[in-house]
């Protein structure tokens, strides 16, 4: 460990899972199926949902100080970053698709519908209510990953909540 424990704050991250299609439903909320060659297939709307793995709590050094010398790390402009998260190298598995929570815990949406089989719910089962993370509760997305020899800086972009 080469970052100060005294500087760390509590956060959560969620890794992106599968992108799954939405199904068309009738007025009662039931999925509409089409029958092709004797097999029943749910009818897709053409829209997709991005699923995220359950958020994981961690501690890290987040800073909102975006002065010139921090914004131009390695000559790269961080652009419209709102915060910088500093971690030890290989400490977190997050990348540019991940979500970050800070100062508020992740919440979960009430889900009670059939989703296509995916890496989170491979059995194509009905997802139990309250199992799916509410991505709208996240504070940041990761806009850039900037590793150095011992550290990784993550440029975070604030999300509209």
């Amino acid at each position: 460990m080469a970052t100060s424990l005294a500087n760390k704050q509590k956060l959560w991250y969620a890794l992106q899972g599968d992108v799954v299609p939405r199904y068309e439903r009738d007025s009662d909320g039931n999925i509409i199926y089409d029958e092709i060659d004797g097999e029943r297939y749910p009818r897709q709307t053409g829209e997709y949902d991005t699923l995220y793995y359950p958020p994981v709590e961690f501690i890290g050094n987040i800073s909102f100080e975006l002065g010139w010398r921090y914004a131009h790390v390695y000559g790269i402009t961080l652009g419209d970053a709102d915060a910088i998260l500093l971690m030890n190298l290989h400490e977190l598995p997050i990348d540019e698709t991940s979500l970050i929570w800070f100062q508020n815990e992740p919440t979960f949406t009430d889900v009670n519908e059939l989703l296509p089989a995916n890496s989170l719910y491979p059995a194509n089962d009905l997802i139990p209510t309250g199992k799916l993370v509410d991505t709208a509760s996240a504070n940041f997305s990761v806009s850039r990953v900037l590793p150095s020899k011992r550290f990784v800086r993550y440029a975070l972009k604030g999300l509209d909540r």
Partner: protein
Amino acid sequence: MVTSELLATLLEDLTAELKDDVGFSQDILQIKIEQAIRKVITARRYPASYSDDMKLADLETFYSVIRDVALYDYRQIGVEFEAQHTENGTSRTYIRPATMLKVLPIAQL
């Protein structure tokens, strides 16, 4: 261990102080307290004639020194042996550890 009672008291007191800190680990805190006790034992250079009870009674008088050294070491987790540390916009300067270990040896050859 001769200092188990002192260790338990220090662990309880420092836990009460630090338990709400982000990332608090009582296991690591215990290691830091044990190390602080050992530092004082080394600095005191007890003569061979000192019994365990005498050592314990003597160490009790250094409660605040042991506490300070343990707390200092705990606060330096991640930045051990650094005199100052700058990280993501935060800069800290640390006092020299030797200034806390105000312990005179019992006997000096």
